[in-house]
């Protein structure tokens, strides 16, 4: 990454950061402390994205830097038990095809090879080891244990929002089960 720095007499300093694809991020730091951020493509005029006060830009800067929060993707959404076995969190959104159905009805285990080992309920305690009669609700987070492929199939089923999607998934199911 190349950063170009230049003086703007009477105004402050300008920094240009190459973003690739002939795009540059242009940051103008005024002597007054104001920051202006622009994006420029090739020889086009710079397009102003936003401006921040001195204090606000320091805060935003440290957020970007990761000082407040470091994203660690694998721990956040999934846990590797071994090379191919995962524990994954799958959110049930409003309108999901599995919402309102029982675990027995959806039958993840036979269809995908993955097991729902717990359900995090909104505003309620987590239900560990849910029975076949447990009904899935929108807003639930399913904790799924299984092979990587199986977990992905569960994710697709849960995020499917009309019956047709579920049908096509069902057709693919035997393969998943064989893998597992």
């Amino acid at each position: 990454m190349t950063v170009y720095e230049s003086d703007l007499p009477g105004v402050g300093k300008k920094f240009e950061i190459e973003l690739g694809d002939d795009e540059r991020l242009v940051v103008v730091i005024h002597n007054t402390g104001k920051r202006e951020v622009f994006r420029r493509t090739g020889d086009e005029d710079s397009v102003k994205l936003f401006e921040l006060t001195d204090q606000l830009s320091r805060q935003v800067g440290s957020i970007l830097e990761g000082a407040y929060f470091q994203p660690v993707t694998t721990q956040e959404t999934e846990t590797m038990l071994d090379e191919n076995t995962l524990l994954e969190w799958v959110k049930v959104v409003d309108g999901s095809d599995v919402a309102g159905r029982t675990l027995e009805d959806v039958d993840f285990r036979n269809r995908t090879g993955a097991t729902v080992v717990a359900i995090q309920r909104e505003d309620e305690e987590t239900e560990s080891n849910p029975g076949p009669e447990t009904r899935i609700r929108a807003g639930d987070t399913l904790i799924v244990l299984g092979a990587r492929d199986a977990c992905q199939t569960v994710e697709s089923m849960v995020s499917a929002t009309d019956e047709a999607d579920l049908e096509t998934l069902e057709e693919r199911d035997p393969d998943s089960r064989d893998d597992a």
Partner: protein
Amino acid sequence: MAALLLEAGAMFAVIALAASVAQRVGQSVIPFYVVAGMLVSPAVAGRFDLPALQNQEFIELLAELGIVFLLFFLGLEFSLDRLLESSGEIGKAGTLDLLINFPVGVVVGLALGWSVLEAFVLAGIVYISSSAVITKSLIDLGWIANDEAQPMLGTLVYEDLFIAFYLAVLSAVLIDSGDFVDILLDVAVAMGFLLVLVAAVYLGTEYFEAYLDVDTEELFVIRAVAVTVLVAGVALAIGVSEAVAAFFIGMGFSSTDHLHDLERRLIPLRDVFAAVFFFWIGLNTDPAVFGDLAVVAVLAALVVVTTPTKVVSGFFGGRIYGLDDRRNLRVGLGMVTRGEFSLIISSLAAGAEGSVVLSETIPAVAVGYVLVMSILGTVLMQYAGSFERFVVDREPSEPTAD
């Protein structure tokens, strides 16, 4: 006392109103301050039996502080090291700008039958673009993040540095209307004083640093104001331009760690006093002079001649920086605005009272010129897109030739 405070209050109210109007119509504040000053002057408001603001001494003092702070801030932007670093392109583009625009002023002055000194004053007025207005427009239009900002700001830096020395020479020449030897002596004294200041700037960074190394914000501001105003006052007392002295004090602080704090804490002071300066210019201008055909003719000639010269010098200045022609045109259009320094030069000439041309014609012409050029320049920048088509439309034929 009550009358004085009332006058001061009325003055600031008028200035605030002018600034609001300028903001509303999206124009630079400088012409509006000047016009506001004219409107409430005895020459206009007084003529209609309305309460007029007299040109009190306190207004003149605040205006004088305005000049001092304007130049002090200019000096703050000049770190000698930084300047030397980027001197190559700035030097070329700036010299081109000087060689085209300064002689034009001299030629027009001589053609009007004025003396060499009068033509020299006129040349300064038409040469110097307005850093304040142009920089503000650059930020407002978002050009500041584009490539055209570099040649424009660079050329402004060159002009400002030139004008600092120009003012030093001019004030020495103007203040003494005696014989040639006296003038030489004054120029020598002025240059000697400036040399001392430059040496102090160059060698005394640590003293500048220590001087403002204080605990409280209050003491910091007061110390900064004290040294700036005192040195400016001493300069004026021995016949050297107070503006140039303030410029060098600013320069002395530019390489210290206090640069940022100075800019942040003194900007409000500069803005207040500079506004009074522009207002004061208007207060001293009787708009009736624009009914004088001679003044109007000179004014029209200057606008017609010096607008294209700035566009041309800016255009080729942009080429020195290696920009494309669309941006070069923007540089040219952007440099048209004249403002604060033209007024400072003319107020210097008016104060000298050497001849009728210096004390009456040139100040009147300068005020009209700045009014026209600051508005014209801002408008040219706003509508640069319409002019760019003249350059860009021809370009499709060029790439095939390439």
